[in-house]
């Protein structure tokens, strides 16, 4: 537990450098798919378990991202408590991991708002209209 606290503390301190991105996003994209990160996080990080700065706390800084990737394997390699696989240094180097980080930080999903999405707006309008009778 002490190790966990230490790593998290270091990682959080280093968030002051949150904007630092040392990796290569182009290489990171290749690695993201080659290591099947997309299988849970989706193409472009927009899958069932999305990965973006807004939705995922682990993208705060490179060190936080690295700590998260390594931490799970260090803490509980046999029966981790969530389904995120571990990535040991022997299988994914720091350099490769930071390339993936750079790729994730380069993603920019900018979907239309519900009000600007005709399909979604039509669904919402229909749902609202359905209850008109019950409000009378």
């Amino acid at each position, binding site marked *: 537990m002490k190790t966990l606290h230490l790593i998290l503390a270091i990682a959080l301190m280093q968030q002051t450098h949150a904007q630092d991105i040392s990796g290569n996003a182009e290489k990171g994209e290749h690695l993201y798919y080659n290591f099947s990160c997309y299988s849970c996080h989706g193409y472009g990080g*927009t899958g069932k378990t999305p990965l973006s700065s807004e939705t995922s706390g682990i993208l705060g800084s490179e060190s936080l991202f690295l700590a998260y990737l390594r931490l799970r394997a260090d803490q509980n390699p046999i029966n981790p408590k969530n389904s995120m*696989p571990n990535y040991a240094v022997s299988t994914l180097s720091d350099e490769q991991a930071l390339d993936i980080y750079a790729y994730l930080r380069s993603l920019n999903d900018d979907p239309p708002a519900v009000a600007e999405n005709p399909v979604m707006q039509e669904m919402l309008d229909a749902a609202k209209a359905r209850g008109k009778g019950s409000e009378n």
Partner: protein
Amino acid sequence: MTDAKLNKEKSGEISRRAFLGTSAGAAAASLLGKSEAAAQTAPPAVRSTLPRQSAEATERDVGDARLPAVVRAAQRPGSDLMVQVLRDLEIEYVAANPAASFEGLQESIINYGDTPNEMPEFISALHEESSVDMAHGYAKAQGRPMAVLLHGTLGLMHSSMAIYQAYQYQTPILLIAGRDDTNFLRSQSADDIAGIVRSFTKWDAHPKTLAEALDAIQEGYRQAITPPCGPALVVLDTELQKEEAGDMQAPAYVPPQITGISTSEARAVAKALVEAKNPRIAVGKLRTPKGVSDAVELAELVGASTSTRATLVPMSFPQRHPLCGPGADTDYDYTLGLETGGIQAAIIGPHRRTLEGRDLTGIGYGFIREPPTPLWGPYAPPKPSHNDMHADAEASLPAIIAEVHKIISPSTSNTIAARSKQHAVANHEAAVTGLEKALEERRRGWNGSPISLARLYAELWILIKDEDWCLASPTQFSGGHNRVLWDHNKPYSHLGMHGAGGIGYCIGASTGAALAAKHRDRIVINIQCDGDLNMVPGSLWTAAHYRLPMLVVMHNNRAWHQELMYAQYMAGVRGRGGDRAHIGTTLRDPFISYAKMGEAYGVDSEGPISDPSKLFAALKRGVDTVKQGRPYLIDVLTQPR
């Protein structure tokens, strides 16, 4: 044209050249030709739209095979009476892959009576697993069985996984296995062929006389539809199918007496519902549409807010009914469960554990045990509840409704009306709020490629929401977005899961649901996983051949994706990375063209579609085609989940 050729065409026969498609005019009269061609050549007395088999095709199929020695030119073969029994049971369809052990029965199905091949209609399946999956989907949609013919030991084994899944889901199916150990391959018969599937069928019989056989078919039907519902099997020896029936008549069918709660229990439940200030009814999976309409009637009578499982299973309470939702007040003072738990009372039908003479626990199929069976994880005994009433909920509803009518007063009715109105307003607000939240969460990746599954579900919903539709495919592998984006208001809105998670179920069950939909102005939606389709794709041909209204939208993530995640996870916890997890879990190099697969089976198809801006138009083409009574396949490259 010669007289001989003219006569041949008038008779509906088709030349070998035409069958092989080797002449320019062949298409118009070929077996796979347009219905107009069939209509021009079919004798007017035959009402079936399907072309008859040609002499050439018969020669091809039979070759120099000798007829079995036991065959008799019966004037009134026993199998005709078997078909009469099926008709009396209002069995609409019999699905089968043709075989020798039921040739007598098959011949009767297509030729018996004045209007041959109308009911039950013989449905050609390309695999016995598909036959049973079709029956599984049909029964889920209609709340009643169709029949399946299976060939001896081999057909039963081919179909065994599908039977197992129907058993797990407690879906009624009438299985008939032909048995011939006199004049056919010994290896395709056995003394007790039903033993192959006895551990996961509800009941079986091997009658020794024609009279027993007719009774057994009726009893098999009764057993299948009596809770706990499930597949029931009748083994019919080929001799019984072919023997002369003489003056024998089909016995009158007597429906089963399905037991509900006692009158005193019904009175107590009714009193509690009427006297409660804020009653609640939790509705699980009932058996038939009648059960659903009765549940609605009861909820409206007593002004109870309700919960539903309609987004997960068929035959539950309408999701968007004004009373469905948390209601105006979630402090319920009386909760009745119907085939699900209820805090004060629950009416729970019998489970498979009650079946006598079935090997439920000693076969290595672990979870066929006591209810409630956990979906995931190790088996744990159920927690005893003193509130459970062990009876079929659907059979209990009429008595409860009758008792409510007896005790409800005008002043109580006014109170109930006011409460119902409050529930309606609150449930509507909850539904809108829930949808707003769901849409916000599902915006992400809207314009991404591969295509977001949430977008696929959303755009498809716009196109079908005003149609009578049935979502036949399981949806958990494609995100389950229907649960929050669609309205499940019909007993057949969503047919739920596979039964045991067995892959290959989806396309067959959807085809069966489309059989149910065909004459009911309904369309069937199948969000089809790629791994599932590759197991038994032949149902596409059945859908094309019978002009079934089934839209197949491929959830093509080019993988057995759940297993990809498993392999990736296992490599991770073993410190070996995930860069080889795709081996054995993905469908790459080459990619599979599902549009070409669909076309190969005769289904209008398009794709792959990876540009999200082109999805809606493709879906519209699909829905328009299906509404015209033809299947359509759209291959969509999708996000993994």
